[in-house]
């Protein structure tokens, strides 16, 4: 009457697969450089304000996704309020630059300090708990930040902050600067993933108890990952503030956090090139499919389920270097 199946082996997110010629091509280190070159060549092909604007937005999105990837992809902690750090960064630099007439670059140290504090405040109590609690707490934290920004006088209430100085003079130069900063951030995330700390993060993701047993201080590793993610998000917030020059609480909703998560999941959790690809797809797709705008988030939701069931490793899966040797 009751047929029990043999227990399936748990599926791992970064499953190992034999290499094909195609995947060897994608593993090549020149792919990243080629991608950067293509990104830098775009303005020479098409430099209208509109193109520059969506391309800059896409670049900032890539930075956000590579930051979230440190938390979700490398360490396996689900953060559903990532837009909060984006908001903290954007608001900190926005408030400082408009109140004290500072150039945007001068606010960066303050932004780093504030996002680290925010990361510790939210991470320290919750990272000791089960990982699924973290998901909801970060979701609540995202809402807290948004509602707080909506209610406080210093953040300008619902209308937000305007008149934030730009990073550069024109849209094209802004695009170049953004792409370069984002490229550095992506390389940084990738290097972090290959470092000793990054290996510890992946160990925590695969088996926290085993990691603890072999001497990895899991709590500290998780907190480090969380703070790194927060700083990446905060710096992306500075870029965002410089690009749009006016920020309001509506830019930092749960939808935004979920969209960044979608990019990470679609591209491949833990895979830096995959996440970059995912972020580009997710941010440019709505521009191409304007007619389907009403169904956009419905499609996102269904896509999340399908990706998790059919291809949990994402479009461009992570491949661990250790396994290939």
């Amino acid at each position, binding site marked *: *009457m*009751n047929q*029990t199946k043999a*227990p*399936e*082996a*748990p*599926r*791992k*997110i970064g499953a190992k697969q034999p290499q094909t010629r195609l995947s060897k091509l994608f593993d090549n280190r020149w792919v990243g450089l080629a991608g950067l070159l293509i990104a830098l060549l775009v303005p020479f092909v098409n430099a209208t304000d509109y193109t520059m604007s969506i391309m800059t937005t896409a670049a900032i999105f890539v930075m956000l996704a590579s930051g979230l990837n440190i938390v*979700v992809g490398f360490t*396996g902690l*689900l953060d*559903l309020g990532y837009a909060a750090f984006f908001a903290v960064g954007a608001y900190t630099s926005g408030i400082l630059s408009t109140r004290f007439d500072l150039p945007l670059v001068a606010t960066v140290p303050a932004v780093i300090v504030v996002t680290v504090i925010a990361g510790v405040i*939210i991470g320290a*109590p*919750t990272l000791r*708990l*089960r*990982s*699924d*609690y973290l*998901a*909801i*707490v970060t*979701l*609540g*934290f995202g*809402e*807290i930040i948004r*509602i*707080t920004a*909506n*209610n406080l006088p210093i953040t300008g209430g619902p209308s937000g902050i305007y008149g934030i100085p730009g990073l550069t003079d024109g849209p094209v130069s802004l695009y170049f600067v953004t792409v370069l900063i984002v490229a550095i951030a992506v390389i940084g995330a990738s290097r972090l993933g290959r470092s000793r700390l990054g290996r510890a993060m992946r160990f925590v*993701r695969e088996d926290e*108890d085993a990691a603890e047993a072999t001497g990895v201080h899991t709590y500290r590793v998780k907190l480090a990952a969380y703070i790194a993610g927060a700083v990446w998000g905060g710096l992306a917030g500075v870029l965002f503030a410089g690009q749009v020059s006016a920020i309001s609480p509506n830019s930092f909703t*749960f939808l935004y956090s*979920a969209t960044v*998560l979608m990019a990470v*999941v679609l591209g491949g*959790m833990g895979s830096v090139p995959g996440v970059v690809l995912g972020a580009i797809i997710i941010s440019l797709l709505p521009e191409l499919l304007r007619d389907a705008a*009403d*169904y*956009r*988030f*419905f499609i*996102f*939701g*269904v*896509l*999340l*389920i399908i990706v*998790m*069931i059919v291809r*949990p490793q994402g479009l461009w899966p992570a491949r661990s270097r250790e396994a290939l040797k």
Partner: protein
Amino acid sequence: MTQLVWNGLFVGSFYALVALGYSMVYGIIKLLNFAHGDLYMLGAFSGFAVLSALGGVSAAMTLPVLLAVLLLTMVSTGLAGVVLERVAYRPLRGAPRLSLLITAVGASFAIEYGMRAVSGPDPRVYPVRLSGTTLEVFGARLTLQQLVLIGVAVVLMVGLNLLVTKTREGRAMRAIALDPSTSSLMGIDVNAVISRTFFLGSALAGAAGVMAGAYYGKIDFLMGFLIGLKAFTAAVIGGIGNIPGTMLGGLVLGLLESFGTYWLGGEWRDVFAFGVLILFLTVRPTGLLGERVTERV
């Protein structure tokens, strides 16, 4: 003062109803069903559809009709929960927890924006309003209908508790919560029991949805998002996976919110609720009535 307590208990009973489904599903398969709040929204909309199809309802008939609609909605929302489990969660049983959580987020999005595509982005006005004679009890103003709604909520919760503690079905659920593979060796059809758990939890959320629609008078496709978060908070306060604890948590959260709103102002209500959540997770992560859970390797 008494009014604040009353409002808190009233809202808290909604939270408790929604939180119960959360807690049951979590207790049995350790999945945070993010889409649970959206089942509440689905309940409100399916009640809306039935009531609209009926046309006008005379004032005298409001309550009986509402109860009938409640029952119908519970069945349809329950079935929706079963379908959700079958389509989105069952294929991933045994997958890493992260995958399940992400799937749940996807399911939540799909339900919310699927409903938006069906019924449009604007809020709908509920065809039945509960506005009747007000009574004065200990200086608090409350309506007869509020009392009936609370009564229904209490009946549902007590019924659920009996079901879980006294019946064969409940014993099967508790067995699976302890150890799914051994339960299946003992002849329990694990998948079927999980399906029925989803049915029950979703039906309760659907009932809460109809009640909220009739009480607040307005529904929209995002109404489940916040209540899902609040329900989780309630479940954590009381002790997730523990049924009496979850009910208590709902009432406590309702009261805390009611007083918090009074002291801090309405715009800080949600911040206050999440602050309480974070505080609880830091100080007493097992909740008021939850027992200590140790993670097994």
